[in-house]
């Protein structure tokens, strides 16, 4: 019991120290900002790539049914590759640093977005599609004006999952030479328990980013027209 209490106290001290690391004087805000920016850059580039690959693929597998299984299974297979192994596999081809980080994280994001795009489109009420067709809308108009907007909440849910996992996995990318909040965490770990403030600072930054992105997406979701505001 005493051990547990001591651990709990240590945790709160580390958390406090982690916050102090962000402040000028007690910490190194300029380093934090640099890593936060690096982390943000990895997330943004990853999501941009992941969305522009996954959404078209998600649409494709709703049109060509025979591709549904192979593509979903391949994305699922990529998702199950352990992250350290994934980075390791990529290094011989693209070296270390930002590039392998973005590639690995993009590959991890594919499954959630492809699947949610397909599920979202397939979930559109067939009566709506039929009336769109019956009014003489072209297939491209039906896709862009009806199916995608109506699938958007489900697609966004997939993007949300992908962003959160990307934010947490991006810390690992520091191990392979990319700048992210992971740098602080790894520095803290290698200090052998003397710099737990750095571990906490990295974790707090990543959590902060996750909350911000989650909020932004929920704002987008709520601004969609004609959907009941919850």
């Amino acid at each position: 019991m005493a051990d547990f209490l001591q651990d709990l106290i240590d945790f709160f001290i580390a958390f406090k120290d982690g916050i102090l690391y962000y402040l000028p004087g007690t910490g190194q805000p300029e380093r934090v900002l640099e890593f936060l920016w690096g982390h943000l850059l990895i997330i943004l580039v990853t999501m941009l790539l992941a969305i522009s690959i996954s959404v078209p693929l998600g649409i494709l597998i709703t049109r060509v049914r025979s591709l549904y299984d192979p593509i979903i299974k391949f994305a699922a297979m990529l998702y199950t590759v352990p992250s350290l192994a994934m980075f390791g596999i990529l290094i011989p081809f693209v070296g270390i640093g930002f590039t392998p980080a973005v590639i690995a994280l993009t590959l991890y994001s594919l499954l959630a977005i492809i699947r949610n795009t397909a599920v979202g489109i397939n979930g559109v009420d067939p009566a709506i599609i039929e009336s769109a067709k019956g009014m003489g809308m072209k297939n491209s108009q039906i896709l862009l004006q009806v199916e995608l907007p109506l699938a958007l909440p489900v697609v966004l849910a997939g993007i949300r999952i992908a962003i959160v996992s990307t934010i947490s996995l991006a810390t690992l990318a520091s191990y392979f030479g990319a700048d992210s909040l992971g740098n602080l965490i790894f520095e803290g770990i290698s200090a052998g328990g003397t710099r737990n403030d750095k571990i906490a600072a990295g974790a707090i930054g990543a959590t902060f980013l996750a909350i911000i992105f989650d909020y932004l997406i929920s704002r987008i979701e709520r601004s969609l027209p004609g959907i009941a505001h919850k």
Partner: protein
Amino acid sequence: MIHFNNVTKTYPGAVKPSVDNLTMSVPEGETCVVIGPSGCGKTTTMKMVNRLIEPTAGEIYVTGRNVLKQDPVELRRNIGYVIQQIGLFPHFTIRNNIAVVPKMIGWKKSRIDRRVDELLEIVGLEPARFRDSYPRQLSGGQRQRVGVARALATDPPVMLMDEPFGAIDPITRDRLQNEFLRLQKQMKKTIMFVTHDIDEAIKMGTLVCILQVGGKLQQLDTPVNILSSPANSFVADFVGSDRGLKKLTLVQVGEVMKTNFPVGRHDETSSEILRRMRESDLDSLFIVDEIGKLTGYVTLKAIQKQPQKNISQILQGIIATIEAEATMKDAFSQMLSYGVRYLPVLDKRSKLVGMVTSDDAQRLVEQTNKVPISA
């Protein structure tokens, strides 16, 4: 206007065709209700007109042009389409839902705005209140009105309606049907209307097309002829054993009422009234005032019992009346529920314009009995 020429549709993998060598026509301005048991191919038949389903063989003409030789997108934009589930776009406002086809064919914004408001008025929705609403904010009946408005957006000459009032509660359905009938009287669209409800078919159709399973045409005729002379035992069975009663819904009181019958005036003497009754061999007489308003009736018995009293003293009140616009079914059910054998027919100012008797109703029912009775 809509013409099927030996049209057959066999779905892939099916042994028997869903629609089998169908040849029929819907002339301009008619509402043709296609009806039959489930699996009779009525929806398939309708969807081949705007090529949501492609026929296996045969030709379909709309306004004289073979639909199979037209671009399906172009074709559909010229045919109004209403379905049971309505299919409004939930992320579009009511205005934008109605504006889909006008926008696609490039109408200007001001023209679209004017047309949307006009259509909302036509279907009985206040433009200012509904224009910017989303479908989820509307009731089922209101949504179906928008569905009809959307189909009418560019004023297409032909409309296809697939059980348009099927998913609506009975009271609202009745009202929407009546409103649509009134609307159609002015619009004179050529309509193909699918339903599984024979009462709706008789009410909405100027023509009723009865299909047997496998898309075999059994009879295409006016509702009256369908009811009074079914082509075969299948049709007779399908319209039901109460088809005589159904026929009463097709006849308005004004069409069969007697207008030339003796009446009494309230200022006449008892002996004058009595003489008129005896002349026409009647046991009662309607009494009207000087401007023709119905005030009541007198019976032969009452006069004979109290010959010295004047008419206003032995006058009895009327308990049930009917208007000329009502159907004979309404009239007959009034007679049954009040236990009377005749009804005075009044106009809006309570003037006596005619009378109907239960014999009139019975005669209409009997006219339908010269039909093959199925085993």
